[in-house]
């Protein structure tokens, strides 16, 4: 057998430690067998039995590439050390082994699905990892930070323990701020029958309120008939989807869609977030039994694209610094928005530098899939696990790019860490930041 080249870092995480301390092999077996019997079916069975152990998925994974091709980090390597172990022992797993399994599933895979594009059979390895996470969730072995976020979802229906009145207060505060720039600007709350419900993730009101300001300026300038809800259901984010807490995920998405339905809007436009897009467009809606979202979901990229195409916003003077674009997995590989993102970028910026690989083949930011939400204990795992991203970005920088566009919150935070750790010197921006800066605004 090949020995792994590196020893994995063992982070001290109370959520994991205390969860594991309560486990017995019998309990693990009971949960595993329950999940296998009642929640999985042909997909899991067929994927496991079709995999020919060829290792061709390896080079898809940024963890693998960043760890000098250490087989422990290849997609199939991670399936071997988690799911295959569970299946081989029919769930009779030692609690200590369960800890390793949980750490791999939660912190060493971003569920980015790049490997699904490299597997000759199209095996959905991210799905296999989610099955492992589901088992860990039911066993109560989840990293503390992301579990806290899931608790916030359960208690408040938003990710950041934002209280109901604080939410409304934040919107009104941003409205007043923006009125200094555009006196007639409104952030319409609870406007029934508006065309668009604008939804954001919890962190926006919590500590990035300027993004709501910018969105309001864009909406008002373009003359959009829009509204934001004043009730829970405004937050489109979803960490429960990543902890394996499907029940909470379902409650969140139901609240979100029902809020939009109550406001009788035609569509939901969402801010620049990737995982939230995955939750409302791909995963959460399916859990609720909707083949596609019950109300059309428009990601910010597509919204900007429509505004520019229809000439509802005009550009004053294009952004002059050279920008490169990071395609977030969940909206590119998950929603095919990469070409629209390029249209928008070119419409806003004078100088666009492609990074390689790009579009569906772009490397993940290593923050997604809930990994960054697992908190500080795993920052090193994320940053060390994505050296390849730094190399990719450095190559774009060497061809002149100084601004890094990342139309996704998770990517933003993850890339900030990569940028800082590897000393890349990029300024990281949302597309909305640029649009706000270069668009013609009403006097």
């Amino acid at each position, binding site marked *: 057998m090949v020995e792994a080249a590196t020893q994995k870092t063992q982070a001290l995480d109370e959520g994991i430690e205390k969860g594991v301390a309560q486990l017995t092999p019998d309990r693990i077996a009971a949960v595993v067998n329950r999940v296998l019997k009642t929640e999985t079916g042909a997909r899991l069975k067929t994927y496991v039995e*079709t995999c020919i152990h060829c*290792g*061709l998925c*390896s080079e898809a994974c940024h963890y693998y590439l960043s760890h000098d091709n250490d087989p422990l980090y290849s997609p199939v390597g991670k399936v071997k050390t988690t799911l295959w172990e569970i299946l081989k022992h029919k769930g009779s797993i030692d609690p200590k082994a369960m800890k390793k399994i949980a750490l791999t599933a939660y912190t060493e895979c971003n569920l980015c699905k790049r490997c*699904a594009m490299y597997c000759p059979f199209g095996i959905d390895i991210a799905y296999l990892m989610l099955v492992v996470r589901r088992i860990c969730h039911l066993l109560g072995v989840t990293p503390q930070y992301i579990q806290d976020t899931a608790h916030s979802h359960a208690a408040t229906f938003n990710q950041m323990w934002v209280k109901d009145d604080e939410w409304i207060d934040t919107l009104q505060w941003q409205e007043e701020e923006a009125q200094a720039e555009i006196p007639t600007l409104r952030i319409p709350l609870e406007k029934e029958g508006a065309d668009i419900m604008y939804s954001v993730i919890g962190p926006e009101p919590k500590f990035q309120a300027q993004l709501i300001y910018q969105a309001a300026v864009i909406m008002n300038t373009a003359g959009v008939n829009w509204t934001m809800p004043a009730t829970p259901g405004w937050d489109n984010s979803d960490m429960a989807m990543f902890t394996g807490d499907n029940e909470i995920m379902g409650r969140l998405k139901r609240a979100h869609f029902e809020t939009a339905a109550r406001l009788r809007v035609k569509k939901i436009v969402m801010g620049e977030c990737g995982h939230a897009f995955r939750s409302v467009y791909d995963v959460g809606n399916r859990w609720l039994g909707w083949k596609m979202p019950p109300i059309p979901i428009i990601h910010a990229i597509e919204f900007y694209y429509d505004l520019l195409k229809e000439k509802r916003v005009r550009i004053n003077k294009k952004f002059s610094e050279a920008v490169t674009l990071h395609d977030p997995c969940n909206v590119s590989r*998950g929603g*095919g928005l990469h070409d629209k993102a390029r249209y928008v970028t070119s419409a806003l910026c004078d100088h666009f530098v492609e990074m390689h690989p790009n579009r569906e083949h772009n490397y993940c930011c290593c923050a997604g899939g809930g990994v960054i939400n697992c908190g500080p204990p795993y920052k090193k795992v994320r940053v060390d696990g994505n050296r390849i991203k730094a190399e990719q970005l450095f190559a774009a920088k060497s061809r002149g790019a100084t601004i890094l566009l990342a139309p996704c919150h998770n990517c933003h935070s993850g890339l900030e860490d990569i940028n800082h750790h590897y000393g890349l010197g990029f300024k990281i921006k949302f597309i909305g930041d640029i649009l706000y800066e270069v668009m013609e605004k009403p006097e």
Partner: protein
Amino acid sequence: MRDLYHFVSGPLVWVAFAVFFFGCLYRLIRMLALVNQKEKFIFSYMSLKYSLRSILHWSVPFATENMRRHPVMTLVTFAFHFCLIVTPLFLLAHVILWDEAWHFSWGHLPEGLTDMMTLVVIFGCLFFLVRRLKLPEVQFVTSTSDYIILGIVAAPFITGFLAYHQWFNYPFFMTLHILSGEIMLITIPFTRLVHMVFAPFTRAYMGSEFGGVRHARDW
């Protein structure tokens, strides 16, 4: 020896083909029944257009990013799988057997060519063996069963090659050739060789998801 030969070239042929066909059919029906029972939604996402788009891309050498990244592997695996299926179907000796038994015959390939194709399969198996032994990412996920599967596939071609050239002990290798071919047929439905049956379906599903929902390429 003679008894063994009669056994493997008589009753066991029936058994092998029956197990192969009904085994594959059983696996296929079971999978579809399981989808129907527990993951019915999969049917609603299946799209013929995107299934074929995906299968086509993955059936053409170098049409996918990963194939271009591994040019030698791509050449070997395409040549291997092509020869693995085509050689036994169009080998003159096999076609004659069908003709003698059932008066039913189809075209065949020149013997020199099928001889080369047999070597391609044997070489392919060797290549896969070396990959398993030498590449860390492959070795890490290799278990004993992977070597056994490789052996099961290689055996009919190695023994067939020896029997055709009548090297060493012809009756022995001829018997072994028939036996190993039957073992391969019997094991296909019940080992990871079942990817022969399942691959088009996993590919079609991923192709449908990428095309229909994700609006992205899966190659």
